[in-house]
């Protein structure tokens, strides 16, 4: 079933992308896009036996990811609608359930309170509807795990546009990490001092990092945070913008669009000013750029030719063996008529590759 993952992801992202362009979290907008794309037809087509159930399970697992952070509130609402739509339009009976993991529960609750506070009635209503319809399995993990170790692990790429960027710096540099960086830095200075020729003074040749790294990092983060708040306040005319943890604002159209603009501005800023970013951040951003430029890391490499095939090719090219000699004789038919031979050759095996 894994061959369905890339196209399914592409389809879901296509739908959510269009939903994002509406800059709204209304269900009507979503349903209109759903109908336009005829998304229910994703379940059409003959599937053997339990294939339908497995497919439903797979698509629900994929859609579930959009319902969770780090996506923006709008995408998460879209993810919720997507789950709702898929749950209701699946053809398996009894319906396959959405697997809700315990570790994600707090995100769901936070989402619900955000939606209630912002008075998005349709979001709350649909979430409650799913609960009362018993559409969830309260599970340990979002999918079945059976120790499927891959030689090349598939990387989880989050669609860049759906990402909630505003809190990323805050998430990355918390007071705990800052303290740890300070500690590590202190230790580092001590070690440097210990190995240097002049006791108590680090060797100037290995002076590679600013002395006041921790303090500088903190001030940079604070400056960024302040800038972010200011731009937000300027664009929204919010009163409560000082409290960034307020979640989702009220359900005004203007708010959504300004949010999108804000996201765009943050994005352009973060991409445009790579040089200005602090040392540790610069490395991260370079990483992000590469991940954006290679969208499909899991390209399949071609299998090398087998030894048997190589030997055969070699023999053929040397002319020491004829085509017929190499054809293996099947035990159940030691001789063969000419007619059969022709028939055998014409019927080449075609197998379906996903």
């Amino acid at each position: 079933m894994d061959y369905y993952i890339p196209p399914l992801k592409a389809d879901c992202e296509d739908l959510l992308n269009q939903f994002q362009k509406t800059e709204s979290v209304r269900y009507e907008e979503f349903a209109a896009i759903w109908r336009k794309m005829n998304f229910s037809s994703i379940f059409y087509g003959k599937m053997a036996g339990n294939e339908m159930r497995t497919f439903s399970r797979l698509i629900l697992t994929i859609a579930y990811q959009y319902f969770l952070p780090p996506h923006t509130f709008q995408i998460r609402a879209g993810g919720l609608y997507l789950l709702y739509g898929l749950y209701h339009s699946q053809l398996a009976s009894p319906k396959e359930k959405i697997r809700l993991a315990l570790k994600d529960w707090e995100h769901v609750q936070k989402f619900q309170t955000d939606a209630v506070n912002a008075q998005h009635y349709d979001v709350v209503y649909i979430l409650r509807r799913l609960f009362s319809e018993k559409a969830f399995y309260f599970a340990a993990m979002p999918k079945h795990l059976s120790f499927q170790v891959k030689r090349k692990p598939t990387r989880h790429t989050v669609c860049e546009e759906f990402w909630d960027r505003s809190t990323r710096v805050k998430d990355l540099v918390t007071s705990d990490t800052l303290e740890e960086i300070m500690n590590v830095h202190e230790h580092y200075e001590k070690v440097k001092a210990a190995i240097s020729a002049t006791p108590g003074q680090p060797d100037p040749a290995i002076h590679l990092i600013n002395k006041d790294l921790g303090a500088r990092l903190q001030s940079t983060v604070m400056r960024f945070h302040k800038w972010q708040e200011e731009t937000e306040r300027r664009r929204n005319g919010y009163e409560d913008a000082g409290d960034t943890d307020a979640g989702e604002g009220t359900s005004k159209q203007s708010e959504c669009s300004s949010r999108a603009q804000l996201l765009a501005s943050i994005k352009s800023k973060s991409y445009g000013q790579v040089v200005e970013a602090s040392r540790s951040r610069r490395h991260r951003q370079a990483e992000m750029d590469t991940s954006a430029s290679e969208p499909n890391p899991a390209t399949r490499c071609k299998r090398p030719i087998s030894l048997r095939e190589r030997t055969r090719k070699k023999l053929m090219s040397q002319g020491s063996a004829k085509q017929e000699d190499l054809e293996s004789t099947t035990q159940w038919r030691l001789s063969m008529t000419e007619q059969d031979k022709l028939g055998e050759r014409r019927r080449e095996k075609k197998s379906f590759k996903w």
Partner: protein
Amino acid sequence: MAAKHINSNNNVPVYEYTDINTKPFHVGAFLSLWKETLTPSDYSFQDTPEEKEDAEFAEEMGVPSETVDELKAICSPHTLKSHPEDENLDKDVVPENPSLQTLRLRKKRQDYKETLLRDVTCRQDFYANELEILAMGKRPEDPEDLVPEGELILSVNILYPVIFERFKNVRPHQTFQVLGSQKLTQLRDAVCCVSDLQVSGEFSNTPDMAPEFISKDHYKSAFFYFEGVFYNDLRYPECRDLSQTILEWAKTHEFPTFHTAKMEDTTFNKLTIRIGYPYLYCHQGDCEHVVIFTDIRLSHRDDCLDQTLFPLLTHKHRVITRKCAVCHLYISRWITTNDQLAPMDPCLFCDVCFRMLHYDSQGNKIGDFLAYPYVDAGAFN
């Protein structure tokens, strides 16, 4: 805050390696965490009446009931249908020129299937579907046997011990669903493995005696190994502690200390496990099955709710059976060596052919050979 509390708790399953396995956690604690966070109506088997739901919603959100009705109309699942109700689409056919990528892929497959002369579903899939549907939504006749609300259901994969060449890409296994309150011995009894049916000994002189001694009755010891603890089956006096040798060996090789416990005293709720992590089930001395917990979740209205049916078999890999060398029809029951009558050594026979070939009408042995009872790997198909 409750959410903070959950996050810091290490009984919340989180990934150790993404998509592969989780960190260890206690099953019972996990259950109580879910129960703390949910209201009983969330996992109850009964439906809450819709009017009550709506009234509650209106009250909590502070909106008039007309708004709720409006919401209901807007958000009904009917809004998702692209075609009017009366148009009966054939849902088995992928529509022409699909725009969705998934459908394009499925269309390609469908087109390929049309070129085939005959199209057969894989029998594995066919049986898997039947088995899955068999117990779905089953209710017990006696209400006493109903699975209690908020019970845990664990899915356990038990892999087959044999690694044939053809199993390199598939991991043949059985899947069981067990309840959290059940004992490990109940799972042990439900696991069917051909090595339990083996008959040891040479029976060419007395072929009628053979089926009476199967290994299951002779060697009853077994153990599960989960997270550093050996759970030994010591229900019968003749059971031996199979883990003893391993423990002693581990002591001399500087391994972390292992513990032992009794299988019959342990329920699944008392276990500490990782989901997706391979563990061991060993019986018959050295028949070793890898055991993987693939999933743990609360029981749901649509599950099989008959307690007596658990441990419930939900998946079984079917193995190709080896047929009799004479008739190529029946599954082999005997294997012979040093047999002058057989085309190869060793040779497989079904019961009928074996007796016809090797014994005269009075049941006397013809020729010189050694015969052993043979249990096919596909005996449980």
